[in-house]
């Protein structure tokens, strides 16, 4: 055995770096925010009426449901999974809600019921993924077919919602001044985001989500409840999709089995643009909010442009997305 005559190694002066390091972890999110503001400024400079406060608020109003769905998706992606069923669950929720309301069921029954359906679907997918070790992609794809299949079976047509509560929620506006308002859905979405962010940062469940994303094997060996958490995450995503579906049906005042086609991609895109790694374990819910805003802002710019043909619309969306992502990448790489 070697005789240790040396005094314990002097610790390197690390404290100085601490503040820097903390900030460094937030660079991707801050860069995204900065780019978002720049993009907004470009819009203001180019289009009349873009500087209207309501333009910004409309992005929230128009994307409240996406925000909620993406929040659930963030949890899933943070564990390194994916949930393709969200769009279909939104559609199913709107269809079921509209059908039941149409049949005269009271809102007080319909609302919890549709939320429950989404949650149970999520739970089922989570259970299949955990217990039978099925890849999340294929399990949630089956969930997607199932949810949309059921919705189609219930009704092929779009069904109007005339229920008092629903119309009230749809038309209720929280006004900050003349022509400056948000809808109740925005409030609900923001509450969801705040709760989600709190859960991720301050609860054992939230931290386990990050741990699983970092390394599920390690998390298991560290004695973390990997299975339970994973199921919970898909359940949560199912719930968020259902809630998103409810907000969507507020927004549309209708239910339709073909609603929200491709919303899973929008949600995934929002999450990833917001800086969450698709492999899991890294990113923030606030980033997801920014991701949703980026998508919303691109859409708004397109509408304000107002002269784009259908194909140019698509090309310009792609170009804006490209410019944004590349700049984001350049900024975060520089500071690393």
């Amino acid at each position, binding site marked *: 055995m070697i005789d240790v005559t040396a005094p314990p190694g002097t610790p390197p002066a690390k404290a100085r770096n601490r503040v820097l390091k903390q900030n460094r972890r937030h660079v991707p999110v801050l860069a995204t925010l900065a780019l978002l503001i720049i993009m907004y400024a470009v819009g*203001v*400079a*180019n*289009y*009349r*009426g*873009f*500087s*209207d406060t*309501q*333009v910004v608020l*409309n992005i929230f*109003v*128009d994307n409240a449901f996406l925000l909620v769905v993406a929040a659930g998706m963030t949890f899933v992606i943070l564990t390194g999974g994916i949930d393709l069923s969200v769009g279909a669950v939104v559609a199913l929720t709107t269809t079921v809600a*509209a059908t039941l309301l149409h049949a005269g069921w009271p809102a007080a029954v319909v609302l919890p019921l549709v939320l429950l359906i989404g949650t149970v679907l999520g739970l089922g997918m989570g259970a299949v993924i955990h217990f039978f070790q099925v890849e999340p992609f294929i399990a949630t794809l089956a969930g997607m077919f199932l949810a949309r299949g059921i919705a*189609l079976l219930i009704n*092929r*047509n*779009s*069904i*109007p*919602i*005339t229920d008092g509560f629903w*119309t009230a929620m*749809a*038309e209720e506006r929280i006004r900050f001044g003349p022509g400056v308002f948000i809808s109740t859905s925005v409030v609900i979405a923001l509450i969801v985001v705040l709760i989600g962010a709190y859960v991720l940062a301050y609860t054992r469940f939230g931290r386990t989500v990050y741990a699983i994303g970092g390394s599920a094997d390690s998390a298991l060996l560290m004695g973390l409840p990997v299975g339970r958490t994973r199921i919970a995450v898909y359940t949560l995503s199912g719930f968020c999709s259902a809630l998103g579906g409810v907000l*969507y049906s507020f*927004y*549309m*005042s*209708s*239910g*339709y*089995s*073909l*609603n*929200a*086609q*491709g919303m899973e991609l929008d949600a995934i895109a929002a999450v990833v643009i917001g800086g969450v790694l698709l492999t899991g374990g890294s990113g923030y819910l606030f980033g997801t909010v920014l991701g949703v805003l980026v998508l919303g802002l691109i*859409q*708004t710019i*397109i*509408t*304000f442009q*107002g*002269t*784009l*043909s*259908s*194909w140019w*619309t*698509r090309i310009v969306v792609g170009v804006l997305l490209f410019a944004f992502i590349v700049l984001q990448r350049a900024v975060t790489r520089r500071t690393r």
Partner: protein
Amino acid sequence: GCGGDDGDSGSGGGDGKLVLGFSQVGAESGWRTANTKSIQESAASAGVELKFSDAQGKQENQIKAIRNFITQRVDVIAFSPVVESGWDTVLKEAKDANIPVILTDRAVDSQDTSLYKTFIGSDFVLEGKKAGEWLVKDYTGKTDPVNIVELQGTPGAAPANDRKAGFADVIKADPKFKVVASQTGQFTRTDGKQVMETFLKAQPKIDVLYAHNDDMGLGAIEAIEAAGKKPGTDIKIITVDAVKDGMTALSEGKINYIVECSPLLGPQLMDLAKKVKAGETVPQRVLTEETTFTPEQAKAVLAERKY
């Protein structure tokens, strides 16, 4: 508003030019593109400033676009609804902002008809009925059972639902007509062809094909030819739309009957927009000028079909 003063986004009629905000469903078919073109061209020739927005097939995009038109204070809003339901809220907002709304191509199922000024477009149920009526007439006097296969549009889309319903409504009167298979061909040629291939193998005898649009019918024709049968003779074909390719096939006798669904709403829409803006009363519902075609009629008009 404040901000930049680019000339290109001139709003609120200072220069007297009518500003029309139009939200299109998307560019999902040749029919739709022709529809868009018609509107753009007639806007230009009618001196209307057109704000065009493509919803990429999503209702939420369309609602966003309408909201944006309201914020930009256009003079008239027109749109082809992606689906029938769910427009009340945003239409109320338009009403509150005193912007008249015109629906094109597809209707909305709103209870409150004051939310829009008028609807211009086709009646899909009627189209299905016309298709059925031709069939009934064609087979009058015969008693053998008639096996029909149907190529439906995208499940859930209004034209698919209505064309199916209208057709079914007419043929149900006579029990000899039997729809032996009905599947979706997604309104596309490839799917039409592939589904028809399978029908041809799964069904021992097919007398009639009813396709919800020309494209699926054209795809099916290829499948029928590949199976060694003669479209139009061995299997009678009825389609809806009357786009140029369909009319060509009709004139060649490969299709037997086409119910027109015209995309050329542009001129009528501009007229209505001007009237609405001027405060004139307009009818609640304006039907597009449409007809039906037999092969002979098709030959006559084929030369002047542009779309």
